[in-house]
């Protein structure tokens, strides 16, 4: 009999189903991965197993069966739950040390020498030993997640449920989190259920469950799953009823093209094909007038921003050239957003010089004439939630003084090209993130800017929508010849940029083209590894 058995669990909310008829089994010491896009039921299932939400079906842990949160009380001492969201279970006004004390107290952990030894070990593993006096509100995202994890581990749970513990965490911290996890399950025989948005992490799991449409659609070892899709993956070739993404084509029908090795993310693309949810094809038409850009679109010299004694950006030099996609990479809190906000004038520049489109920027007045040439998409897609997609776009068009007939024409065109025409009369909050993301870019493109600033446009968006998004950027660069500055914390996305700048704690630690970086790191199999080596060097 397995240690944990979940039978036919269904979670219903008022208006929708969270997860339907999910079953799974786990043995001691196993790490089970929950993989799938947002809103596919991973969190619902985790909440049901943790006994914090009502569900139908049965869960048996260590011989104890439960059918409701009330019955689950009996095993709560064994469970550790880390819900989704950075620092969600932390109190901003408590220090790291106080958190550990608090979590030990509410779990009624006996505080003897063994406890302190274990506590220190966890602190050390998380690299937080020196920060016990720091307020949680002042920690970086990665540190917050590590603190949440060790707080969850403090009472030595035998069933660990971690909901996206690594999202938004820098690559090095992510690596450390996995090391902690690996150690614990070996030492304590803990079962860990982990959901993740990073496919690379799936490789470290004993078993993965794929989620789609509130159901578990596949389970097994990762290699098996990748192996299963091999027949559907081809090198890039023209085809019908198929999907071409990132230089590969996916088709259920045999294609007249050589096969190629599938990657982990390809599982999603094949799955989309199977469930006949073909994403719309992205196109970009010609713009109404030509693009005239100076050779150097943006030049920053020694740009610095301080918040009190904290230096968010420390003397950063950067150039954005004509017709280039420049990736600005770094962990949460590395200073990416602050930098973009300085470029846009949303934050005052404390030190340094900025030239935009050949014009030196000294005050807000210098920016007035440039406004029509710049497009900006902010983090979390700033849209009016009470207005429909169409109304949002019409509003932005009006504010840009675009004549009404022309505005309606352009909006219609983008809706078709970027594939959100069917959603025009919906409210943004009811739409998938991927759609919101494309339509906020459409809003930023309405006035046909010559330079585009994108702040984390892909975070929280599922793999297919991300792939389409990059296809769109590629076409924009190709057809319009505009320059794009984009920030992201998905290191794998660096591959699609022409050049990348890597920030760490407000300092620039790398700035080069993608090819050059690969050349200087011949051993690296992926971009993730290149960045890891930079992060380690500069630790």
């Amino acid at each position, binding site marked *: 009999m397995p240690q944990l058995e979940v039978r036919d669990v269904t979670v219903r909310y008022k208006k929708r189903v969270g997860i339907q008829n999910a079953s799974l089994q786990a043995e001691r010491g196993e790490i089970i991965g929950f993989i799938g896009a947002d809103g596919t039921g991973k969190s619902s299932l985790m*909440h049901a197993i*943790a*006994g*914090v*939400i*009502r569900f139908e079906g049965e869960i048996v842990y260590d011989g104890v069966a439960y059918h409701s*949160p*009330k019955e689950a*009380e009996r095993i*709560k*001492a064994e*469970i*550790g*739950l880390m*819900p989704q*969201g950075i620092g*969600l*279970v*932390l*109190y*901003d*006004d*408590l220090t790291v040390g*106080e958190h550990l*004390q*608090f*979590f030990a*107290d*509410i*779990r*009624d952990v006996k505080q003897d020498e063994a406890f302190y030894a274990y506590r220190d070990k966890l602190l050390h593993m998380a690299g937080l030993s020196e920060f016990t006096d720091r*307020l949680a509100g002042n920690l970086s995202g990665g540190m917050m997640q590590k603190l949440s994890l060790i707080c969850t581990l403090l009472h030595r749970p035998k069933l660990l449920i971690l909901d996206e513990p690594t999202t938004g965490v820098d690559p090095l911290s992510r690596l450390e989190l996995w090391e902690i996890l690996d150690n614990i399950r070996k030492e304590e025989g803990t079962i860990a259920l982990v959901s993740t948005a990073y496919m690379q992490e799936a490789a470290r799991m004993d078993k993965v469950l794929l989620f789609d449409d509130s159901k578990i659609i596949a389970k097994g070892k990762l290699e098996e799953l990748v192996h299963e899709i091999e027949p559907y993956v081809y090198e890039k070739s023209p085809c019908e009823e198929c999907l071409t993404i990132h230089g590969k084509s996916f088709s259920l029908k045999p294609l007249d093209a050589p096969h190629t090795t599938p990657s982990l993310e390809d599982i999603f693309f094949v799955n989309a094909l199977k469930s006949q949810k073909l994403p719309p094809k992205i196109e970009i038409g010609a713009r109404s007038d030509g693009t005239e850009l100076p050779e150097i679109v943006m030049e920053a010299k020694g740009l610095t921003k301080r918040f009190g004694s904290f230096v968010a950006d420390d003397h950063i030099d950067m150039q954005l050239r004509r017709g280039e996609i420049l990736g600005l990479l770094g962990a949460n809190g590395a200073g990416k957003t602050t930098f973009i906000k300085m470029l846009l004038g949303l934050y005052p520049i404390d030190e340094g010089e900025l030239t935009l489109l050949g014009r030196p920027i000294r005050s807000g007045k210098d920016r007035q004439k440039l406004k029509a040439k710049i497009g900006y998409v902010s983090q979390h897609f700033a849209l009016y939630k009470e207005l429909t997609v169409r109304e949002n776009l019409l509003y932005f068009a009006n504010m840009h003084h675009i004549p009404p007939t022309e505005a309606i024409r352009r909006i219609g065109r983008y809706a078709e090209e970027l594939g959100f025409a069917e959603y025009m009369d919906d409210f943004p909050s009811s739409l998938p993130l991927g759609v919101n993301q494309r339509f906020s870019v459409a809003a930023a493109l309405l006035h046909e800017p010559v330079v585009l600033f994108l702040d984390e446009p892909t975070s929280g968006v599922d793999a297919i929508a991300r792939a389409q998004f990059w296809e769109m950027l590629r076409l924009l660069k190709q057809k319009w010849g505009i320059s794009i500055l984009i920030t992201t914390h998905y290191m794998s996305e660096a591959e699609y940029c022409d050049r990348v700048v890597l920030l760490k704690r407000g300092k620039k630690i790398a700035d080069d083209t993608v090819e050059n970086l690969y050349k200087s790191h011949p051993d690296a199999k992926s971009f993730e590894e290149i960045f890891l080596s930079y992060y380690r060097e500069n630790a």
Partner: protein
Amino acid sequence: MKTRTVRAFALKEFVDLYRSRMIVMVYLLPVMILVLFGYGIRMEVTHARVMIIDNDHSKFSKELVAKFEHSKYYNPSVVQIPEKEALRSIKQAKTDALIIIPSSFEKRLLHGQKSEIGVFVDGSFPTRATTIEGYIQGTILDAASEVSARMGMKPKGMITLNQRTLFNQAMRDEDAVVPGLIGLILLVAPAILSALLIVKEKEKGTIFNFYASPLSKAEFLAAKLIPVFALHSLNIFLLFLLAVYLFDVPFRGSFMLYWLSSELYILISLSIGLLVSVITRRQVVAVVLTVIITVIPGFLYSGILMPISSMQGESYIEAHLFPVMYYNHILYDTFLIGQGLASEKIVLYLGILVVFFLFYFAAGTLWLKKEMR
């Protein structure tokens, strides 16, 4: 219940309240309300701006004017302007009342002829107008009876009121308003704080620490409510000191009764907050809802604006459904009257307050669920 766990959790709440500076609001708001309203609500009228047009210039009229000049109730100005212009001054809200003494006023009176003093009062603030009107009539009659007595005229009938106001001899507004305000504050503030402490965890997500741990509902509630109870218990003393030393409200009853009934009242208030936190998810909603269900009845049924005995129909019944009325009865007794437990009514009201607490607390506890919704 594991006391160690509860103590640790409650301690965390204190630290959180202190570091998030919420603690300032816990004490600032009650003090601010008491001071502003205590100084602010004035039913008594002093320094009313009275304009007097003396068309007579006789000894009698001058004596009358002097009467006005020597009273703290008026701030008179004697002018020689046409009536129309004086009335315009009222329209401009520069004058509250206008008194016109007719010409040959003294002469006519001495000859036993009728003479009429015209008084015009700005009625746009009705209660203030009624008060000023009463003052002016009293002052004029006073002067008249003095003059007539001196001249040996014999009145045919005269009644003087010998008022003995009980409990609040000087009829000070402070004595009447401040205890009622304490009843309002101790109803609103603990409710808001306790609702916030729970809803804040819901909104931020830290409520998972409770959902996912073996912590029982009773322990969680104790940890959340003890700090609120402790912090506001201090307010009982703070408000008492302000009332007695800043506003000079007399305290004639038993302090023990004041203290214990106030603690009981705080318990009722935080149970209301608990109920609010059960049904809301966002802090803003929790605050607004708590304010709506506590401030309005707290004001209406506090007895500050009108005594319960003057209410009619639904409002009379409604007043009995809120705890304010009972607590305020005890409050006014301890401050101004001092009957204490000797009065059966007070014992009954204490009992009713206990029932209120048990009812609200039980409802809140039963509704609070240890699971997501």
